[in-house]
């Protein structure tokens, strides 16, 4: 019997369905808790600079004068420190990852004032 | 939480003897750590015996820092001592396995000594 301890696994693999997914055709949905990317909702932001201060990788730069909020997605490690620190609840961690980047650039969000 | 930790200052020259005594008492060398404190280096020797932890601390000036090696009692100390030699520039006398400064390949010599300039 001892010599055949692998046979159970082999039999299951032979008759069972594959453990892998046929990726691009079937994709796994991200979990509710998955950290995909940081989303910025600009309408409530007061540019207090708190998120930039707590960011461990200095991925966020806030310019109060120009009302500009910038993030470098290459630096962001999705730790969630900024979303926790935000007093105005305008930063969120979304489940889906950010789209692939084609150039090394900062994502700038500027609020137009009339 | 965990048990209280004692740190006992020791004379650097008495280290090999102290290490031999610890070894005879059944302590295991847990780690050796070097810290730059002002003009001095503090070398912390931690010994563990089951759940107990005992620390010995040798303080020596940074200029021309030299210490006797404890590899005579604890052979496994050679890695820690070579690491401290490479990162801080502390010389060890009587190292059982001496890498001569080639254990870690660093761009700057002794990068952890406070006067090192980062690359």
């Amino acid at each position, binding site marked *: 019997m001892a010599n055949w301890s*692998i046979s159970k*696994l082999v039999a299951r693999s032979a008759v069972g369905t594959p453990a892998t997914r046929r990726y691009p055709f079937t994709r796994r949905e991200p979990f509710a808790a998955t950290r995909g990317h940081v989303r910025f909702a600009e309408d409530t932001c007061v540019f207090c600079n708190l998120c930039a201060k*707590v960011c461990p990788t200095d991925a966020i730069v806030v310019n109060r004068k120009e009302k500009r909020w910038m993030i470098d997605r290459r630096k962001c490690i*999705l730790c969630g420190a900024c979303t926790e620190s935000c007093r105005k609840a305008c930063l969120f961690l979304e489940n889906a990852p950010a789209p692939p980047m084609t150039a090394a650039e900062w994502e700038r969000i500027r609020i137009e004032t009339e | 939480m*965990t048990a209280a930790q004692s740190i006992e200052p020791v004379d650097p020259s008495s280290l090999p003897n102290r290490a031999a005594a610890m070894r005879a008492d059944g302590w295991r*060398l847990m*780690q050796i750590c070097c810290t730059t404190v002002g003009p001095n280096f503090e070398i912390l020797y931690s010994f563990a015996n089951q759940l107990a932890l005992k620390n010995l601390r040798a303080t020596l000036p940074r200029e021309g820092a030299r210490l006797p090696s404890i590899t005579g009692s604890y*052979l496994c100390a050679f890695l820690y001592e070579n690491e401290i030699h490479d990162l801080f520039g502390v010389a060890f006398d009587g190292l059982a396995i001496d890498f001569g400064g080639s254990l870690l390949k660093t761009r700057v010599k002794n*990068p952890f000594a406070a006067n090192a300039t980062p690359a």
Partner: protein
Amino acid sequence: MSAPTQTKPRTIVPFGPQHPVLPEPIHLDLVLEDEKVVDAIPTIGFVHRGLEKLCEKHDFHKMTQVAERVCGICSFMHGMGYCQAIETVMGIEVPARALFLRTFWAELSRVHSHLLWLGLIADAFGFESLFMHSWRVREKILDIIEETSGGRVIFGSCKIGGIRRDVADDILRRIRRELDPIETEFRDIASVFDQDPTAKRRLRGLGALSREDAHALGAVGPTARGSGIDFDARKLGYAAYPQLEFEPVVETAGDCQARCSVRIREIHQSFDLLRQAIDKMPAGAIEVPVKGNPNGEYMSRLEQPRGEVGYYVKGDGKKNLGRFRVRTPTFANIPALIHMLKGCEFADVPVIVLTIDPCISCAER
């Protein structure tokens, strides 16, 4: 025959840092007599990153993220060990729920790390389908990790004073039910390691390390416990471990098979601890506010999948720490590894190197 050994020609074979069976950048100069290894000289330092020095640049809250990136496998426990050291220095009382969730994640990462290792060792002795089966089960553990913490590799959930995010009780209860089928699946894989004649032939009697040598060379974790040292740093009573029931897993043979079965039994033990942690999970807050800066020093010890790890922090009342030092288990196990290699066959070197579960990136912070 008492011919002096010097008469035999000696060959030095460089092994690593890049080698098909060795995923880690360690270099060994193997001194061979015919096919027998008589000595091994280790060289590390190919990937030294100097993370410890970063504590002078970042404030102590941000160092949590750096500590977590010391290793990609036991990332959570690195963050946890660092937080624990700072919390002790600052006298922070962490809420019970945070401690239990930390324990929960720590045990999950132990299961996934040991399953990863079982796969690697199967691959090292040429049992590739077993490698895939181990990693298939590991994937389910990774899914639980991602579902609860939000990350597969870097959990990012530990912070000074508690944890970043809570896990809902209904999710925990569902995970508790899911653990049983995963453990059943794992039992099938474990029986192959325990019983299969090919696995036994490659592991039994190989790389023997006596209890005395393991102690003298400062071995830790499964390497030491495989040689009969009943030391498990979880018994120190950090996090929620004082409230959970377990006994250190000890094997006495001291060979590769013993280290392998220590890890297999530890996976079962971790499943048990996971169930206990979920059952006893208290309600309440998950973090406390942290004020001030650390002033003092502390050496925090905890048990990682690879063994005991030590975090030394020294703060002097400033935002930046004076010194942050990690003594990783692999670093402590290298002298024991060198001892095991002496006298083995050349072809067995990869298997023996893998049985200490080397994580060289850990060893070179």
